[in-house]
């Protein structure tokens, strides 16, 4: 058995792990979450927008 990768005995366990992953993201410090937000903004800029909402990648290095 290769322990290098996670294994799940059933789908419920996988969903539980997924939920836990999101919970852990929520526990990150606010500063870290803002860094992730900026990454999300950069990623989303690569896709066309169907709304006329303002889209600016935030400047956080100040």
């Amino acid at each position, binding site marked *: 058995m290769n322990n290098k990768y996670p294994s799940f005995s059933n789908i419920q366990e996988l969903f539980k792990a997924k*939920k836990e992953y*999101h*919970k852990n*993201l*929520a526990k990150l410090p*606010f*500063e870290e*979450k*803002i860094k*992730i*937000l900026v990454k*999300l*903004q950069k990623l*989303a800029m690569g896709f066309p927008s169907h709304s006329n*909402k*303002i*889209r*600016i990648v*935030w*400047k*956080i290095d*100040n």
Partner: protein
Amino acid sequence: MKKTIEVINELQKEGIIRKYAVGGGIAAIIYIEPVLTYDLDILYIPEKEEKGLIDISPIYKFCEEKGYKFEREHIIINEIPVQFIPVYNKLVQEAVEQSVEVEYQNISINALKPEYSIAIMIQTFRQKDKERIIKFLEQTKTDQNLLQNILKKYDLEEKYNRFIDSSNE
């Protein structure tokens, strides 16, 4: 972002706004996993409360003098679009009054408590609000007594319970 917060804090210090709290997506990010947003919503209690027309010109004047540009309903403060939203009902007013201080890079920022954020989202009830309410309930600790009291006070209990029942189906 630090400079942006400093400008907002200055508005409060200068008495242009009485009190503010971060709302919307950024208030959510304080408590839940990061969600995509491009603007910083600032809910605020104006210094002068007048019935009828809401005068937001003092905020715009202050920012214009500092050289910040406007883009539609936003003021771009250090490359972050900020939208100033005066408190528009009693729930939002109480939410701002009861806001808490959160640290960002060693400076304080006022933010809504999660219980007030949930109640406001129950009131606005857009699709993104519904998704965020679920995340709030799954990912952060909320004071259930406080939440129930707020919901009861603003007649949102039934709407909340119906939403919770439907999301559990």
